[in-house]
């Protein structure tokens, strides 16, 4: 199995755990100094022994967009399946799984105005048909026939998607997530993307004027979405976040669940500014005003 070193812990830890159980080798591909994917390294490490290639569509630390379509083709050429972490792409940009030709793509409800505790795993139908259920219970089964002679129950799985939905599902969560999807589709994912790109460009240009701020990750607006990780000279990321908190501006500080990428950046942590549909230029201006105060410390 091959993953990139830029991944969120949720795209590293489960594979580390299952690789020990199943006994397969987990390999990591490198990133460039700016945190963008080293495509040559990823593609070189993909070989006919690779069963699954896994990559985030958008980095949750840098906002950098990965060309998963390109990687999916190379994965398929090597006989591997392609799994994409879409937690940072699906809420922020149009995503067409058929066009990307990925085999699996996962995303979370809580990152797209929906409830916590629910997400989506898309899988190609022909692959899901071949897979056995990972969990047993009600609803995922069509038949449980007891054979008295053999003292055994013969089982027939239900059809997709129920085969993978054992037990009483998170009904309220699914309704909430459906409402979030409808809300975003009503706005239009093209418009969501355009809005975030505009805010990101506006912010990046002004943040670069600060003498104490270092912005990490790719700078080109064509390569990234609305996430800006940064550090401030002389302050820890937690101090930066608490300073902004004083003004009612919430930033994330720390590793952002991506410690390996921070090790690559040689950072103890970073502060992260991120945007969504509800953010405005006025809010960005307020952020920049506070940043100027930090600059004068």
């Amino acid at each position, binding site marked *: 199995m091959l993953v990139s070193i830029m991944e969120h812990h949720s795209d590293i830890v489960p594979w580390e755990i299952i690789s020990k159980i199943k006994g397969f080798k987990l390999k990591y591909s490198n990133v460039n100094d700016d945190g963008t994917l080293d495509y040559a390294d990823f593609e070189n490490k993909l070989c006919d022994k690779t069963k699954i290639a896994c990559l985030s569509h958008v980095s949750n630390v840098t906002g950098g967009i990965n060309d998963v379509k390109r990687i999916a083709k190379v994965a398929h050429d090597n006989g591997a399946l392609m799994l994409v972490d879409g937690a940072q792409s699906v809420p922020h940009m149009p995503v067409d799984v058929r066009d990307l030709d990925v085999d699996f793509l996962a995303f979370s409800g809580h990152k797209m105005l929906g409830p916590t505790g629910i997400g989506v795993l898309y899988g190609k139908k022909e692959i899901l048909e071949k897979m056995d259920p990972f969990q047993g219970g009600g609803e995922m089964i069509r038949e449980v026939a007891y054979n008295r002679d053999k003292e055994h129950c013969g089982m027939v799985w239900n059809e997709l998607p129920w085969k993978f939905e054992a037990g009483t599902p998170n009904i309220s969560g699914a309704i909430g997530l459906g409402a979030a999807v409808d809300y975003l589709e009503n706005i239009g994912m093209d418009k969501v993307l355009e809005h975030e790109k505009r805010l990101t460009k506006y912010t990046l240009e002004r943040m670069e004027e600060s003498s104490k701020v270092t912005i990490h990750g790719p700078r080109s607006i064509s390569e990234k979405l609305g996430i800006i990780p940064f550090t401030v000279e002389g302050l820890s990321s937690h101090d930066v976040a608490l*300073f902004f908190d004083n003004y009612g501006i919430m930033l994330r500080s720390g590793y952002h669940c991506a410690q390996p990428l921070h090790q690559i950046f040689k950072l*103890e*942590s970073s502060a992260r500014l991120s945007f969504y549909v509800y953010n405005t230029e006025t809010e960005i201006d307020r952020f920049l005003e506070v940043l100027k105060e930090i600059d004068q410390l």
Partner: protein
Amino acid sequence: MATIDDYVSRIEGTCGAEKDVIVIFKYEKKDEAIAKILKRATVKNKIAGIILELTFQGQSFRVYSSGKAIFRSIKNREELNSILAGLLL
């Protein structure tokens, strides 16, 4: 008899190599907590009227006017509780 819980809403460990601890004071008690801390700790620096750099029993920390404090290099919860008790009780 007052306890730390009378002043502290919650304590969070930060993620990152720094391993800092953030103490969040109860909103309605934050001004009282900051006033007590200012009486007992030594103010080393005041930054932008927002951040107070302080020392107490050899421990340096920062208090923000929003009612949050950040402590560095705290070994364990017992050490933090001891410092908070000294500052607040």
